[in-house]
């Protein structure tokens, strides 16, 4: 029988937890009757054992049916039934096709069987047998629900603990960038909001004697796989900037591209191998990844900014200007299978003036569905917000922009990770 103490003591890991419980875990000993026993005897037994909901009928060790207390009592209580059936075999009122399962059946398979069998089985329970089909005992629907609930809660707990800790790691990876931003800039903000506690969005800032390098990165995917990618990208970027190439963001993108493609084995022209002329007839090799990042790399020094973008634009707003300048990056992402190994991105030089604002965002804000029409937030709305709030300190701008974003999102589900950064020269 199910023991709460045994459940509480379980220290099984995620992959073990499923196999830790089988049908036998639910085994309850129950009195049984044989077909030669009479309905009078069943009546006697049921009145003595008020805890018995259903009574298995066993013949030569094999289960042949299940007598449900309520059905039996209702049946026998009708006029003259007792007189007619009292001394007859107890099989008259039994369910001849109860659910019978092997003691080794997994809880998941058992749940599907119980649900598939309908309400009857949840109420009456089921018979558990050994490998030879010999009767062992019964299991109840109540115990099954308890154990399924427990397994679910336990699995959730393990997954959440693991993600929460992953989030701690990802945040501590961002710490160096936060410190360098604080050292390099006076008026700035960073908003980083992964959709699932951890995510594929990432920001990077490194201060040098002669300026600082800043990047906003959107790796493939979100959640845990996205977070894996950010750590790979961050370590590559750190490495690349150790060499003297910080003033060449496009060159850094090209280096990242080569590193990612080699590291993830994404060097083929196409990851879908043509088979007999039909490219999509068979599933592609599941082990072949097609991951990478969309990003904007910027080198900022006293009076200029050098920007190179992979599907990530740069937004600038001059002091007193009423229109945002959007500088589009190149249209290839970094590292993906369809980005050639020798692809080159372009550097764009932007002259910086005093008071100029610079913003970067991943597609999480622009593409979010919401509003009255359930359409994307859009660049136009985003740029309007930048203009409307441009006179505020950057931290206050962030509050306004995000508030407008949350309002726009409304009841819609968040579609992606959201990141936004801005600074004033």
């Amino acid at each position: 029988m199910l023991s709460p103490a045994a459940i509480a003591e379980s220290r099984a890991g995620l992959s073990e937890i499923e196999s830790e419980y089988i049908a036998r875990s639910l085994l309850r000993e129950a009195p049984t009757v044989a077909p030669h026993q009479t309905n009078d005897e069943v009546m006697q037994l049921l009145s003595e054992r008020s805890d018995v909901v259903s009574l298995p009928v066993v013949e030569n060790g094999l289960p042949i049916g299940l007598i449900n207390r309520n059905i039996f009592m209702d049946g026998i209580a009708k006029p003259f039934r007792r007189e007619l059936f009292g001394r007859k075999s107890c099989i008259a009122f039994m369910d001849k096709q109860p659910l019978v399962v092997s003691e080794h059946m997994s809880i998941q398979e058992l749940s599907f069987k119980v649900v598939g069998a309908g309400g009857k089985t949840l109420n009456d329970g089921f018979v558990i047998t050994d490998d030879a089909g010999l009767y062992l005992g019964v299991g109840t629907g109540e115990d099954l629900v308890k154990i399924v609930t427990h397994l679910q809660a336990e699995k959730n707990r393990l997954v959440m603990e693991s993600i929460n800790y992953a989030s701690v790691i990802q945040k501590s990876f961002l710490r160096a960038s936060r410190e360098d931003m604080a050292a390099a800039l006076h008026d700035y903000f960073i908003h980083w909001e992964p959709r699932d506690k951890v995510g594929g969005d990432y920001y990077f800032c490194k201060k040098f004697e002669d300026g600082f390098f800043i990047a906003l990165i959107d790796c493939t995917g979100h959640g845990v796989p996205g977070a894996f990618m950010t750590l790979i990208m961050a370590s590559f970027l750190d490495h690349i900037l150790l060499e003297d190439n910080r003033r060449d963001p496009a060159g850094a993108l090209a280096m990242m591209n080569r590193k990612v493609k080699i590291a993830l084995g994404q060097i083929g022209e196409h990851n879908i191998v043509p088979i007999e002329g039909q490219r999509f007839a068979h599933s592609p090799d599941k082990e072949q990844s097609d991951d990478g990042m969309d990003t904007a790399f910027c080198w900022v020094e006293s009076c200029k900014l050098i920007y190179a973008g992979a599907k990530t634009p740069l937004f600038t707003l001059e002091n007193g200007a009423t229109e945002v300048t959007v500088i589009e990056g190149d249209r290839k992402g970094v590292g993906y299978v369809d980005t050639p190994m020798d692809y080159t991105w372009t550097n764009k030089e932007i002259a910086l003036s005093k008071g100029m604002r610079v913003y970067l965002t991943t597609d999480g804000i622009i593409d979010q569905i919401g509003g009255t029409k359930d359409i994307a937030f859009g660049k136009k709305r985003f740029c309007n917000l930048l203009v409307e709030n441009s006179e505020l300190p950057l931290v206050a701008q962030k509050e306004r922009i995000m508030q407008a974003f949350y309002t726009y999102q409304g009841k819609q589900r968040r579609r992606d990770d959201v990141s936004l950064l801005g600074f004033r020269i």
Partner: protein
Amino acid sequence: MNDLYLARTAHSPEVDFRFSSHELTLTGEAYPENAADFFQPLLSALEGYLRGVDGQEIHINFRLTYFNSAATKMLYSMFELLNETACTSNRVILNWFHDEEDDTILEFGEGVHDDFSALDFRPVAVDLATA
């Protein structure tokens, strides 16, 4: 070639591929947990269909309002197939539906137009509030 229909879900679009009348429509949003699993059968069916048609006018009605980056890659594979057939055997009209205020979808469509020049790209502005 059998027509292909899939109902819309929270994460995947309605797919209405009427191969018999050469009209293929995608409506809704595409951010399935595994984009390859969702799109491979569609691409496979489309490729099979395209091998059996010649000299046809094929209408594509693109009515998606959101797709994530993984789905975008799959959509590009689809446009690639269509662009190839438009270069060699069939005329492909790509009706690109977007809300009149949805600059994101329109801009994406213009990118598709640049990348797949053999497709007859036709932006169609609609008002989704009244649609």
